[in-house]
């Protein structure tokens, strides 16, 4: 045990921040970041699934046979995704509608399956939960950051809890390209470039 629990948590926030460093799980990153709010909602939903699936997979890691482990992971993940889906439908319906099919698609998010396979299956329960929380928060942060850039340039506002804050004066012309698909790709590409500039090497 070289790393402490705190390190397992913090590595997900910068050193191994999933969408940028590992380039995994890009679909929700591109699709739901039209506004900060959507980004945070999606990030939190994914974090919940990550933490719970990491917890269960690592608790059961001695009972899951090597050969059928992927199928087992998928069932565990799908169960938690269904829970999130039903809970959001009941308590956060507007957000659920905005995120649309991307909530059920958390099942096929490579980050969740990747952490189950690469971390939770080999480590203790506490470390796995810390890892899931860290990676999940990192994912939320990246979604929020990308959402903030796209929303502020594309619409000129930042929305928190359904109250938009206008950022620029009345003469601001929204750069609507940013909230469409091409803007998502280019914006993420440039942010990745920025991360590379700031990061090690």
């Amino acid at each position, binding site marked *: 045990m070289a790393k402490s629990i705190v390190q397992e948590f913090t590595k997900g926030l910068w050193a191994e921040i999933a969408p940028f460093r590992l380039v995994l799980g890009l679909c929700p990153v591109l699709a739901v970041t039209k506004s900060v709010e959507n980004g945070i909602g999606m990030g939190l939903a994914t974090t919940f699934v990550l933490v719970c699936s990491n917890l269960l997979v690592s608790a059961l890691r001695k009972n899951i046979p090597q050969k059928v482990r*992927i199928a087992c992971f*998928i069932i565990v993940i799908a169960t938690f995704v269904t829970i999130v889906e039903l809970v959001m439908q009941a308590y956060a319906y507007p957000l659920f509608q905005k995120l649309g099919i991307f909530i059920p*698609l958390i*099942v*096929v998010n490579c980050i969740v399956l990747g952490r189950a396979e690469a971390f939770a299956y080999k480590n203790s329960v506490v470390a796995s939960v810390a890892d899931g929380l860290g990676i999940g928060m990192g994912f939320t942060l990246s979604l929020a950051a990308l959402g903030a850039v796209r929303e502020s340039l594309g619409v000129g506002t930042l929305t928190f809890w359904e109250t938009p804050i206008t950022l620029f004066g009345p003469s601001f012309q929204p750069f609507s390209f940013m909230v469409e698909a091409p803007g*998502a790709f280019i914006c993420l590409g440039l942010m990745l470039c920025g991360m590379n500039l700031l990061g090690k090497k």
Partner: protein
Amino acid sequence: MADYLVLAISCIFVNNILLAQYLGNCPFLGTSKKMETAIGMSMAVIFVLVMAGVITWLTDTHILKPFGLEYLRTISFILVIASLVQFVEMFLKKSIPALYAGLGIFLPLITTNCAVMGVCLINIKEEYDFLSALVASFSYAVGFGVALIIFAGLRERILLARVPRPLQDTSIGLVTAGIIALAFFAFKGMV
């Protein structure tokens, strides 16, 4: 007939699965460094997506809906897709080894390709009938292939270009994808 043609064009170009619906981006970036792998992946996706689209549509209409089990959709779809991929893999290995060798490692990867699951869910969400679901699945898969192959062609050229260091690899790939998406954006409003 004309309706199906319109649906096909809208799925291939206007609502392109990769560039307009943002689905299936991991293989889009992961398998586009070489033309050969891009073609392999596209073929595998077309093959699996058509089957998955049809089977999940049947599952939903004839099993989940009559028994009021819609809340099990996510779990049942992912299980159907995972076992279908496994089954296709075993079948091809045994009876069409040439095709199996061609598709190779791309088949198992498709299980976690969100384009497949995404199209199955879109088919249900749009309330397509059986034939429309079939046409839509096939056209989305073709659209995936078209975008992936265009992208792979461009990426092979980028390898020869001088790219600033922080922009290298994925970063320039995403910017290029954005420019292709811009080209596909022009189809918007066509159908």
